[in-house]
């Protein structure tokens, strides 16, 4: 059993945070369905080349958030995700992407107006494409 998590070793983001963020997004978005049995801590740690301590921490955090549950002796499973949780999570993801875009613009000394102008151009293009059926996502 493997989970498609990609670690960026040179990223400044701590390892456990990278794993946790990706796993959470896969659970909340429904890519990994309710009731899925996750790999054992050791197995997961081995496939990610990280320590068992890190995986255990991730499992514990997500269990506290109600996304995972552990059955003694059988393993760790994906729990049911509430609709409200899904909505809030989607918003967080989009918010983060927008913030990253804003950070990029600020570091290149764009003004708020210039960024907004660019943003509206992008929106116009993307949503027009979507309207034509060019982007099914």
């Amino acid at each position: 059993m493997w989970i498609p998590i990609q670690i960026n070793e040179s990223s400044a983001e701590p390892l456990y945070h990278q794993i946790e963020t990706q796993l959470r997004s896969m659970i909340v978005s429904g890519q990994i369905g309710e009731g899925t049995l996750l790999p054992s801590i050791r197995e997961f740690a081995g496939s990610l080349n990280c320590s068992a301590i890190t995986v255990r921490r991730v499992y514990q955090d997500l269990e506290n958030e109600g996304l995972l549950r552990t059955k003694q002796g059988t393993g760790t499973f994906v729990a049911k995700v509430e609709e409200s949780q899904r909505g809030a999570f989607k918003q967080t993801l989009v918010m983060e992407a927008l913030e990253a875009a804003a950070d990029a613009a600020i570091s290149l000394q764009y003004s708020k107006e210039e960024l907004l102008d660019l943003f509206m151009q992008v929106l116009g293009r993307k949503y027009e494409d979507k309207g034509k059926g060019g982007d099914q996502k």
Partner: protein
Amino acid sequence: MTGELAVQLRGVTKEGRRKPIGPIDLDIPAGYVVALVGPNGAGKSTLMHLMLKTLQQDEGQVEWFGKQYERGLPVEVQRKIAYVPEVPIYEENYLTAEKAGEFRSKWYPAWDAGRFEELLNRFGVPRGIRLAKMSKGERRKFEISAALACRPKLLLLDEPSSGLDPFAWKEMIESLRTLLEEEGITIILSTHIVEEVKRLADYIVLVYQGQVHGMVEKDMLLGCFQEWWIRGGAEEAARLKGLSSESGPGMMRIMVGCPEETESIAAREGIEVLRKRSLELEEALDLWMKGHLPEQLKWKRGI
């Protein structure tokens, strides 16, 4: 992974032939992999002998699975422990791999003949020839197979990969991982191979000049040092209190030892950070050896 300790050392010292060791305080948590790293002659092998009780400490206490033993380890404890020494013992030199396995099986009631056979095959250990006639790598493969066949609770490996070809090395890593998954054993290994630490270790212990310079979670060590590129010159770099810095075209490259703290300084002082990257394990180990490890990262009992 129950919070129990496999081995515990308290104030252990040993007057060596070359130099004194200790006093050493060290906790080896059960169910984890602890890598001992440090330069040649730092005392890693001696430390292993103290944990095997093949060397008696001058002062201090050692506990195995929560118990102290004054005069040598009782047989039932010895049977839980397997050890692959740096240099193989000569008593088995005139035996073939099969015979040596038979001999060891008498000592270890949990001996797993099936696993031994399987490992010898996987590693391609030659049969029917004496161990002394084998190449260094072949002998190593036998030693590792025999140690794993004992079904130990505690496994000590002194530079296990020395002499192994890359294929055998991969097999070794895989076999150890399987053992960790299925049996929850504790492994202590000394190594100079960073890739080995990266693939296996949960904790890293730095041994240097006969002293233990702390134990850290591997992933914490990886996360604790970063290289930053910032806009500005020496003045900006100094304000961030990095470990070292180097100037570039209108920017500075600095080594950061505590990213969270530095981030708050950068935000407060309005210093623009252009890029960041985490250091490789090798670089992080090097900085640790130079004494740059933040104190709060060191593993304390009960956490």
